[in-house]
């Protein structure tokens, strides 16, 4: 299997991916390097200790000046998944729908490559980009061990896996919508809206009673919203996220088979 579509798409995005990953990694490094400055800030801790709603909005589940709380509030509950989602949703929306709109997809689909293979290779290309961003960022976060950030290694890696799978899932949502509609804008909008709602539900469920049952429908809950940074990611959470990804790939294949291209 030569994976020509996979290689082409990654090759075209390699510089963007490198710069993007570096930016995310440097942000992570700055956050962990700042930890000693805020480690003993009781004022900051009181901000969320006295207000569960504020804590929920920040994505904090405990003390935000603890090593896990610091990483959660500044990275894992928001910016880290957000930046991974920007990359995966952006690629998911552009890889089929966007390339159809700009006309380059016709060149690929009139080559002797099956549509289902094009879809699978593009899904793999998206996953590969997410792996690069998440793994390099995680490596930079791990530098935090030299700045008093002492979370369990397995827990942190588990939370990073959660971010990775969340990014892949929502990127695949963009891919499915793009494959079904052929419209990049619709794909971007739908996946971003789903991501935003998913985030809100996951973060507000602990304090908004009627939202509690809805958290199970939130991809954020299964990836970063259920104390994964302190308790690790469970096999069932991984299974849910991987299962969703597989269903979305299957839906993308079906949708792209039916799409009328330009």
């Amino acid at each position: 299997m030569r994976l020509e579509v996979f290689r082409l798409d990654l090759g075209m995005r390699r510089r963007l991916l490198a710069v993007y990953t570096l930016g995310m990694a440097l942000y992570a490094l700055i956050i962990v390097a700042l930890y000693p400055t805020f480690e003993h800030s009781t004022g900051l801790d009181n901000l969320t200790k006295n207000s569960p709603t504020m804590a929920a909005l920040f994505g904090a589940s405990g003390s935000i000046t603890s090593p896990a709380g610091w990483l959660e509030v500044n990275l894992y509950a928001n910016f880290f998944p957000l930046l991974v989602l920007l990359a995966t949703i952006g690629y998911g929306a552009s890889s089929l729908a966007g390339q159809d709109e700009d006309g380059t997809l016709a060149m690929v689909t009139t080559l002797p490559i099956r549509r289902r293979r094009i879809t699978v290779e593009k899904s793999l290309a998206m996953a590969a980009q997410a792996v690069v961003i998440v793994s390099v960022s995680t490596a930079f976060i791990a530098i935090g061990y030299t700045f008093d950030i002492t979370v369990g290694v397995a827990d942190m890696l588990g939370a990073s896996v959660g971010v990775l799978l969340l990014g892949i899932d929502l990127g695949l949502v963009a891919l499915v919508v793009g494959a079904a509609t052929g419209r990049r804008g619709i794909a971007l909008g739908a996946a971003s809206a789903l991501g935003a709602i998913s985030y809100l539900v996951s973060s507000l469920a602990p304090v908004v009673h009627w939202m509690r049952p809805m958290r199970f429908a939130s991809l954020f809950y299964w990836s970063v919203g259920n104390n994964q940074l302190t308790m690790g990611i469970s096999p069932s959470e991984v299974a849910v996220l991987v299962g969703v990804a597989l269903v979305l790939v299957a839906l993308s294949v079906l949708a792209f088979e039916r799409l009328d291209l330009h």
Partner: protein
Amino acid sequence: MPDTPPTTQPGPAIETSGLTKVFGGTHAVRDLDLRVEAGEIFGFLGPNGAGKTTTIRLLLDLQHPTAGTARLLGLDAHGDCLVIHRHVGYLPGELSLIGRMRVRDQLDWVARARNLPDTRHARDLAERFDLDLNRRIEELSKGNRQKVGILLAFMHEPELLILDEPTSGLDPLMKDRFEQLLRETAASGRTVFLSSHELDEVQRVADRVGLIKEGRLVRADVVENLRAKAPRTVEISFQDPVDPSVFAIDGVHKVTATGALVTLEVSGPIGPLLQVAAQLHPIDLVTHEASLDQLFLEFYRDSGSDDHAS
């Protein structure tokens, strides 16, 4: 379906039956019955919006028909599209290439995707069309980008070429080289389906022409037959002015007399006209064959929406 070379299968290179595509209630292609024989250059003519590009997209399985079927090289356009794409070269009307790539890299990538052993034929064509393979595509002029499209369509020496407005942006010299390439392609037994609104170009290279209007095939015939049925202009000079009413005979549509010069629009056999003219002491007679352009306009003027493909 075994992946055997489709050329070994007898029959037409392209055959559609009742091919129809409807977008939101509008028929882009309607009941299209088309047959393109192997080894011919078939000109597919029509104005913008007539359904040429949609027909091509249906043939290549880029779009799915609302009704009807299409077969290419004896194979089903949808079910056997993988094999068909291996043996078909396609040049889209609106060519989009990956701008950041060098031409050489683009060719290499397509060669790998097509499982070609090398890009020798593409390099030969690049030399023939004076195309620099080391340039980035985003740096190329429209004409040079079109040359890249031509290379991509021809590089695997396909059995069937489907070309949508292929000379768009090419200068006259390159158009000439491209027409030569088409003739060589047909001479080697391969088929060319050439969609265009460049009537002169089609007239020069096509064996047969199909005219499409509002998604329907209005006419398909060899260029000579289309011309024979089209009105041509006849100019006759007489010794003295003549009464134009004497030319009110079958086949003569329009008569204009300017002194001793009579200009007539004639279709069908010219014999009855010559018999009348001979009695009036003619001095000279000149005929102007209908150009494909005139013929095209004539068919468009005459064909109503109920016309059927021939």
